[in-house]
């Protein structure tokens, strides 16, 4: 394998000229998105530059404590983003969602880094941070979709919940269709993605590894491992989040607690509609 071809900053800037094509389309059709595109491309460049700086710093240190703290910060930021995007109250949901994120990270990292890759140093930043980041990033996106569906269904289908709770006498039975709907919404895109991977889409990690000089066979094995890790991580995350959420949103009588649900921004939006 040849060494990777680096991109110098001048060439990278030249690549940015490609943006003239979408900007041209947007301008021609008077679609008011040009400003958004420019601002967000600039943001991306600044954010990724900062990431490059701190990743280099963290990779050089390669300390178990710093790396673990960094992962905890990643989980926390992910949790706060999810709570904000779903429209929930932070004080009620920060702990359960954090536990869900931590559980998925612990299981996936132990399995992938300890049992599959058999790393001597499990906290090696080169593996620990990217793999955790991939799992958390994906779990975040899918969890937001799933949990938003869960809360929405509960608020819109209260009659079904009460019917099932009264007639089955069992809360697990009463929440089952709501969990099913949320989990399907969260995981279906990932399942669909797995079915076309390699045919329609070439995953970023695999592409990155091949460009980085890895043989395709190695890149593909990593990709298979990471796809399974992401799927399992997302599944753990959504189920643990829902289990803990149920303990928070329902009182001992099975009623939804107004303080946790009815004052959410999510519901206010619904009422406004």
């Amino acid at each position, binding site marked *: 394998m040849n060494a990777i071809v680096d991109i110098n900053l001048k060439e990278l800037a030249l690549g940015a000229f490609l943006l003239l094509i979408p900007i041209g389309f947007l301008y021609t059709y008077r679609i008011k998105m040009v400003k958004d595109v420019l601002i967000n491309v600039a943001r991306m460049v600044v954010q990724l530059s900062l990431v490059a700086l701190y990743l280099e710093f963290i990779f050089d240190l390669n300390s178990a404590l710093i790396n673990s703290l960094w992962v905890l910060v990643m989980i926390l930021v992910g949790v706060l983003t999810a709570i904000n995007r779903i429209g929930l109250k932070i004080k009620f949901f920060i702990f359960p969602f954090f536990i869900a994120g931590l559980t998925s990270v612990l299981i996936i990292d132990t399995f992938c880094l300890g049992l599959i890759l058999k790393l001597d140093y499990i906290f090696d930043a080169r593996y620990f941070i990217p793999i955790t980041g991939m799992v958390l990033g994906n779990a975040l996106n899918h969890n937001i979709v799933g949990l938003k569906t869960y809360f929405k269904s509960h608020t819109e289908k209260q009659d079904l919940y009460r019917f*099932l709770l*009264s007639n089955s006498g069992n809360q697990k039975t009463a929440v089952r269709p709501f969990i099913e709907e949320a989990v399907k919404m969260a995981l279906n895109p990932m399942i669909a993605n797995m079915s076309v991977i390699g045919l329609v889409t070439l995953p970023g990690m695999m592409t990155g590894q091949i460009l980085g000089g890895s043989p395709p066979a190695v890149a593909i094995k990593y990709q298979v491992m990471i796809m399974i890790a992401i799927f399992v991580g997302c599944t753990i995350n959504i189920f643990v989040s829902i289990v803990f959420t149920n303990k928070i949103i329902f009182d001992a009588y099975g009623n939804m607690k107004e303080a946790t649900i009815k004052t959410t921004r999510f519901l206010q939006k619904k009422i406004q509609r």
Partner: protein
Amino acid sequence: MIRCENIHLSYKNKLILSDFNLEVKKGENVCLSGASGKGKSSLLNMLQGYVIPQKGKVFIDGELVSATTVKNIRKKIIYVPQNIHLPVKNGNALIELLSTKSELSKTYHLLKQLGLSKDFLNQDFLKISGGQKQRIIIAICLSLPKEILLMDEPTASLDDKAINLLIKTIYELKNKTIVSASHNQHWAASCNRTIKL
């Protein structure tokens, strides 16, 4: 079987029930009547433990309804809701969601008594009438092996013929204690007792 003692219930500063008492004996069929907003549905919700009165006590089969007993109490209760537009595909899907020990043969028999064939369990809820849907839900509920039956406006979507079939079906039920809320006078007349709220 069902006892409410000195119930005081208000919702959003509106008094719904004041010093209310009720005793329903085992096997009795009682109808709650009264204008809308008088507390019929609230009372049914209270019997299931969804609404907690500000004062007073509710006993079901000798057990005080409380946070610790509500699970056990709900195992004895069947609830036929006022809103029949449940977001499920059909009767079979509803049976599957309930995942209880309801006997299908009993459901088929009840459907027949209510004037419907068992094929209606497969019919899409969006493609059948409100009256058919209500009868399907009632048949599924009545086939649950529980002793207490609570029904909120069970005749709301039914025509006179279907109401008569339902009254006959309920009359033939054995070992059920029934409390219903209804505006329908024909239905109220068929019950052992009517309580006006």
